[in-house]
């Protein structure tokens, strides 16, 4: 958090742009060009899906360049793009290094997959079979991801400093408690619900088709996703004399920070993707996050220096309560020493 030991800012940012935006653009550009050269007629039918017994799905040839564009350029650009603003602001974290590397890796995967699948079918000399295409694409994605990670300077964590919050003034005998909820953002909640409904519908449909194996799998996935969604949607939050307790509405996961282990509390503006690599319950080096949306969050730093971040509308009040609890604990310890 000090300015004395800052990385040369433009080098970190430049490398991130190279790796996370330029590489995907070049790769997908080359891949789409190759595909267009190989495909004579964009409307011709090509195999688009392989089952255990060989090809079982067909579609027009233009599906491949479109898939390359979406999976190889649009999605990676969104991922890498989320890291650019924080980097330009001077923030640093392994997540901000990971996002561009992930973008390069994804771009490689989609470019190689789509191009390989096209070339096995319409190319003049390349007929390796789809198994090899898969192996090569995933292998290349792994290698490119690793190189993209290594090509960027390592980043010591510099996150926006939490704004300190004044402890709530409390009398020596006063007891404070804050009880409330941390909830998923409305858009994310709607997306999760529709995903669950969709999966449930899919499960019912596969049962109706009497394909028992597929039905069992889709049902299992539907139940798993619904459980995960339930566990990540609403958290009960309690700040009292014992410290901070955060518990999912379904009981698990739960987090407890004893009052004695609170080193400092503050309010922070959090960006899920850039700071924690996504949303939900996130465990990253140096921090644990319950990140249900972007925006105002409570930050509690533990005695070990590890940060706990929880997105909360009324983060300032909770921080003030925990500050008072911490102060009264320290006061109590002092009194005990004097006795």
């Amino acid at each position, binding site marked *: 958090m000090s300015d004395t030991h800052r990385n040369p800012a433009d080098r970190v940012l430049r490398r991130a742009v190279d790796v996370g935006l330029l590489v995907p653009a070049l790769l997908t550009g080359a891949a789409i060009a190759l595909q267009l050269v190989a495909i004579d007629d964009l409307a011709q039918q090509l195999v688009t899906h392989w089952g255990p017994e060989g090809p079982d799905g067909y579609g027009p040839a233009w599906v491949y360049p479109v898939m390359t564009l979406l999976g190889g350029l649009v999605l990676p650009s969104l991922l890498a793009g989320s890291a650019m603003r924080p980097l330009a602001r001077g923030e640093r974290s392994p997540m901000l290094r990971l996002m561009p590397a992930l973008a390069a890796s994804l771009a490689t995967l989609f470019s190689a997959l789509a191009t390989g699948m096209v070339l096995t079918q319409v190319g003049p000399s390349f007929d390796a079979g789809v198994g090899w295409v898969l192996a090569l694409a995933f292998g290349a994605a792994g290698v490119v991801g690793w190189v993209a990670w290594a090509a960027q300077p390592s980043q010591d964590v510099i996150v926006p400093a939490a704004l300190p919050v004044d402890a709530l003034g409390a009398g020596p005998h006063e*007891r404070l408690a804050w*009880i409330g909820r941390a909830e998923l953002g409305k858009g994310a909640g709607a997306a999760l619900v529709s995903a669950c409904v969709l999966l449930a519908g899919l499960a019912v449909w596969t049962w109706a088709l009497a394909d028992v194996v597929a039905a069992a799998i889709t049902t299992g996935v539907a139940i798993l996703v619904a459980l995960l969604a339930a566990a990540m949607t609403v958290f009960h939050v*309690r700040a009292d004399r014992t410290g901070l307790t955060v518990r999912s509405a379904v009981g698990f996961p739960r987090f407890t920070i004893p009052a004695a282990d609170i080193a400092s509390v503050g309010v922070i503006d959090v960006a899920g993707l850039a700071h924690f690599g996504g949303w939900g319950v996130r465990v990253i080096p140096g921090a644990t996050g319950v990140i249900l949306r972007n925006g105002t969050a409570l930050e509690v730093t533990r005695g070990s220096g590890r940060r706990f971040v929880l997105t909360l509308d009324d983060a300032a009040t909770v921080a003030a309560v925990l500050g008072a609890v911490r102060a009264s604990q320290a006061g109590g310890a002092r009194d005990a020493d004097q006795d």
Partner: protein
Amino acid sequence: MLIRIDPTAETDLYEQIADSVREDVAAARLVAGDRLPSAREVAQALDVNLHTVLKAYQALREEGLVEMRRGRGAVIAPMSAAVAELAADAGALVARARELGLGTEALIAAVRQAARAPRDT
């Protein structure tokens, strides 16, 4: 929802808990439809008897600030909007009292007196 109590204060504990809710309603931090935490959770957090919290909720219910709903527990009632509406008037009253050099306690006593006095209209 923030609740603060002082066991050494003269006011009953349940009144102090109810006051915390009343203040939040007056400041519109709690609005109609908001759910209050379960009495058990409040009791644990404040380290007080469960019945103390239940008594506070009961008092709020009798005032019409809170409704008990099956399956949802205690919920802030629509009446709370009227209380929040009074906030501006209350602010003006406090400002006037300060002008006259009166403290909060004196003001509260005056309001109580006015509430007890028979209406002369």
